[in-house]
């Protein structure tokens, strides 16, 4: 039996169940204990599992991630919450220079089974530096895995996989979707493998690749364009951003022959470019049109009064579909 949960509730449930099942699991971060997290992702867990396992830390991201590395080296399974993705930078060195490299340097002698959970993305009317999508920074780092769920079901299954993963996982939670909708989530623990994309909607004319909050824009645009023009778009939720699920990407292109990539991250050196490169390497001769990207612009995420114009909209996605299909 399942329950109807928001993504936030599904994330809380995943952590609650892992805390209950495995003594090695602990959560640490700013305001995550008594306060239950600024988005309430850890609500109730401090009371239930205690202050040693749900730890309010000092306000210092390098200290948090660095000490979590030590905890992980010595047998714990820490889940770190970074309050917003753009606040991770003081801990970036710890993540990139140590967490991602410890297994490599010690030739497998010591690993860092660490999860960094952090809300990311725009569209929540956030203050400055509360809305970034800099997933590329992490997807450019050998040794890290990067995951971004787009719905409650995947969020729970992917988070459990991330906690059980022997290597560090950056778990990006689309802030805009935290409470956007509910769906049926099984009560038991289940796992969605890291590294597997999902074909959310089958289609024959074009494939839209998206993740996180952009998945809903992609689905809405696909639905509208089908109603208006009769074109059937396949929609692929990448779910894991590093390493990418090449097989699913390529199979879909072989079927549809056209691709549109939608991401809210900046365009230049965004993951869209990597997806285009995969298609170029593996399925160029199947392409009927150049691959298009609908992305956030190459500007700092602007103040929220105009952020909707920074983000890809359903209209921009529809235009991208039309341009590609009528090329």
């Amino acid at each position, binding site marked *: 039996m399942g329950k109807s949960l928001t993504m936030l509730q599904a994330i809380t449930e995943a952590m609650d169940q892992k805390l209950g099942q495995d003594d090695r699991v602990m959560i640490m971060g700013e305001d995550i204990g008594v306060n239950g997290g600024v988005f309430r992702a850890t609500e109730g867990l401090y009371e239930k599992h205690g202050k040693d396992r749900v730890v309010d830390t000092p306000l210092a991201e390098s200290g948090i991630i660095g000490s979590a590395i030590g905890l992980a080296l010595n047998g714990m399974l820490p889940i770190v919450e970074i309050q917003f993705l753009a606040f991770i930078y003081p801990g970036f060195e710890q993540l990139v220079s140590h967490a991602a490299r410890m297994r490599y340097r010690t*030739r*497998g002698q*010591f690993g860092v089974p660490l999860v960094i959970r952090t809300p990311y993305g725009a569209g929540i009317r956030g203050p400055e530096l509360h809305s970034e999508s800099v997933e590329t920074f992490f997807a450019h780092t050998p040794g890290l895995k990067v995951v971004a769920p787009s719905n409650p079901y995947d969020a729970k299954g992917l988070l459990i996989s991330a906690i059980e993963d022997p290597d560090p996982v950056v778990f990006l939670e689309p802030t805009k979707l935290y409470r956007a909708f509910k769906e049926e989530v099984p009560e038991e623990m289940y796992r969605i493998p890291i590294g597997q994309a999902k074909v959310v909607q089958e289609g024959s004319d074009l494939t839209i690749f998206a993740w996180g909050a952009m998945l809903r824009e992609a689905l809405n645009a696909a639905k509208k364009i089908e109603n208006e023009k009769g074109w059937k778009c396949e929609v692929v939720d990448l779910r894991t951003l590093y390493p990418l699920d090449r097989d699913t990407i390529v199979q879909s292109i072989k079927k549809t022959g056209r691709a549109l990539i939608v991401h809210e991250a900046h365009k230049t050196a965004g993951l869209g470019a990597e997806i285009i490169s995969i298609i170029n390497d593996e399925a160029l001769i199947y392409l009927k049109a150049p691959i298009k990207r609908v992305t956030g612009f190459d500007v700092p995420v602007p103040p929220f009064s105009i952020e909707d114009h920074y983000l890809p909209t359903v209209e921009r996605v529809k235009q991208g579909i039309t341009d590609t299909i009528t090329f």
Partner: protein
Amino acid sequence: MEKTGNPIMKAHSSGVEPEMFQVLTPEGEIVETIDPKIDKSLMLKMYESMLLLRTFDRKSINLQRQGRMGTYAPFEGQEASQVGSALALSAGDWMFPTYRDHGAAIIHGQELYRVFLYWMAHFEGSICPEGKRIMPPSVPIATQMVHAVGTAWASKLKGEKNVSIAYFGDGATSEGDFHEALNFAGVYKTPTIFFCQNNGYAISVPFNKQSASKTISQRAAAYDIPGVRVDGNDIFAVWLTVKEAVERALKGEGPTLIEAITFRYGAHTTADNPAIYREQDEISTFWRENRDPITRLKKFLIKEGYWNDEQEEMVLKQFNEQIDAHLQKAEAYPKSNPLEMFNHVYANESWHLKEQQQELEQILKKGVNK
């Protein structure tokens, strides 16, 4: 003056800036009562360990000069700090060295040939013997300090009787991670020992340019943890201080910051020329002649009748043979297979690494990468 062998308690309870704790003067005189006792066999172990390390260090510089090893970071002059601290640990304690602390790592159980392998750029140079907890040298400054908070925190949570020790230099104390580590360790009362070898220079920058703080140990007060300043060339003082810090940690009394005053005689690395930034000949001669950690213990041991030149000659011969045997092993070590670069990026290899590995394999087969 009341004499005590408990420098941390003295410094912390008095609330005043501590003087440098010293037990053995450069003349080899004992100026503090030693408590706990350091018996003869431990004294000899200290002395021989320092001799071994100095021999190793000098040999390593020569190997680099001969092109048999890559850039090397020498520690000559800092032997008392490294040996004294490492000998105060138990076998299962976590050690987080920097690139200049392979002396401490060797004393804690790292094998000599692996240290050679590290500087010869073999992957296997970062591995410690099975069951040991000696982490690979940290290259980014101060970053390892927070790891030593985490491992100690886990020991505490699991009820394991182990401490974690982080090595770092005076330059590291300007980094954010130094402060974050002390703060976290203070908050969670982790059994961590922060062992600073203040050798006066962060490459070229002297400590008076590094900070307006008079001492490093005084920073501990800000985090309400004990901080103590010791003569880092006095191995008795170092050992006693670290020993006490270990005991405090294991009793649940939390972390300690130790500032060991020492000096590196040579360059920052074999790629550095210290004559550019200090009166290298004068200053290193001064330390060698007046403050040397090995000479001072030797004076004491000879006075006590524990040591003589004959023994020294014999031990040095034995160390040279031992080091040469490890060097031989390191130089005979098979060259890393280029394909190994793809291993251990993840516990389970991903498709893209498998493919890139195959790509390199093909290139190697064709022999185009000469």
